[in-house]
């Protein structure tokens, strides 16, 4: 149940996936709102601090996920997936794994190089030190740009990645999405596999 199997994902992979997915989408929304909309300055200050705390949380989870992903077996691709699709999915997953790490690290670099030198007080519990980078306007500007660019690039990839998942689920009606929802999910009924008509068998799969 915890570990991946030959045919599906275990709970560890699934929990990490969705926790990171929700946090990342939330952080992008938060990042956009706090930086690009007219909001009350006091609220803006707090949102920045929340963004950093949740961002560090993602960084921690992303490290765990990267480690777990490299030591844990990969389930076989769901039946019905062409080799090209499989390769595309693999590249996408690697890109997302790496981007989650570097976007968060770039965010940490922004906080570290900022001449404002605002401490990162993780959920008001402990101070996370700055990275050993020199604080200067130029370096803050660089990292701010890199962090934003990589974050929105990741958002683009996530959109493609999620679209592919929904395509598989609603159009191809295969088990791709279900596998990522329930540990050790059984295959979808073989009969419905690759047929687009037979709705009934799908509807209430529990």
């Amino acid at each position, binding site marked *: 149940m915890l570990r991946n199997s030959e045919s599906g994902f275990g709970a560890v992979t699934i929990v990490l996936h969705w926790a990171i997915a929700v946090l990342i989408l939330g952080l992008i929304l938060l990042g956009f709102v706090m930086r690009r909309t007219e909001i*009350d300055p006091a609220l803006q*200050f*707090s949102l920045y*601090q929340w963004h950093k705390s949740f961002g560090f949380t993602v960084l921690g989870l992303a490290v765990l996920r990267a480690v777990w992903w490299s030591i844990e077996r990969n389930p076989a691709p769901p039946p019905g997936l062409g080799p090209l699709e499989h390769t595309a999915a693999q590249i996408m997953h690697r890109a997302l794994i790496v981007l989650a790490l570097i976007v968060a690290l770039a965010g940490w670099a922004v906080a570290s190089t900022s001449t404002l*030198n605002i*401490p990162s*007080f993780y959920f*008001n519990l402990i*101070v996370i030190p700055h990275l050993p980078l020199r604080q200067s306007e130029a370096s803050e500007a660089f990292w701010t740009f890199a962090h934003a660019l990589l974050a929105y690039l990741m958002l683009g990839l996530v959109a493609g990645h999620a679209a592919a998942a929904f395509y598989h689920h609603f159009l191809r009606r295969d088990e791709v999405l279900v596998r990522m929802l329930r540990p050790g999910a059984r295959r979808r009924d073989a009969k419905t596999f690759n047929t687009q008509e037979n709705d009934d068998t799908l509807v209430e799969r529990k």
Partner: protein
Amino acid sequence: MMTPRRPVFKAIWLFALLAMATTPAAAAAAPALADAAGNYRIASSSTVQFSVPQTGGGGGIAGKFAKFSGGFRIDGSNIERSSVEFTLYPESVRSSERRIEDFLRSSAVFDTANYQTVTFRSTSVTQTGADSATVVGTLTARGKARKERFEVTLTDWNKRSIAFTIRGSIRRAPYGMDVGTPIYSNVVEFDMNIRGQKR
């Protein structure tokens, strides 16, 4: 940084202090009360600095106010009947960078669009030593008035002017300026060098 951790706030002006000329030890430093008595205008050469420590060490926020005005009266017969009144224009805040100054002026802190001044009016002066005194008064910022306390020490005087250092630790949250806590301390340390010019 220094001073007792009591609320207190910004600018103040005091004066008070002088030691009694009758105290031999202090006689060299402090003027005779009768000599110091009078009305003073706070000179623009005075400085009004503040700092807000930050968690985990590091500089915190430090700055000063460039524009202020006020005056004080030293009572010749009873120092404790002296008084001070001071006005600070937070729009004139200066810090290490523009972003910080703008933030301090914004609705998050001084809200200078709605509150142009911060004022202090003394209600009592208590001598605490040959050249020191405590001044208590009403500090008004962002429309909230509270009792605050500053410690005043005489540093210099001559026939026409008199100078003090004034320190106070003011809690900012009661004035609706709690933004940034607990990363930045709730307590703002004020450190002022106030020179009064006899009118």
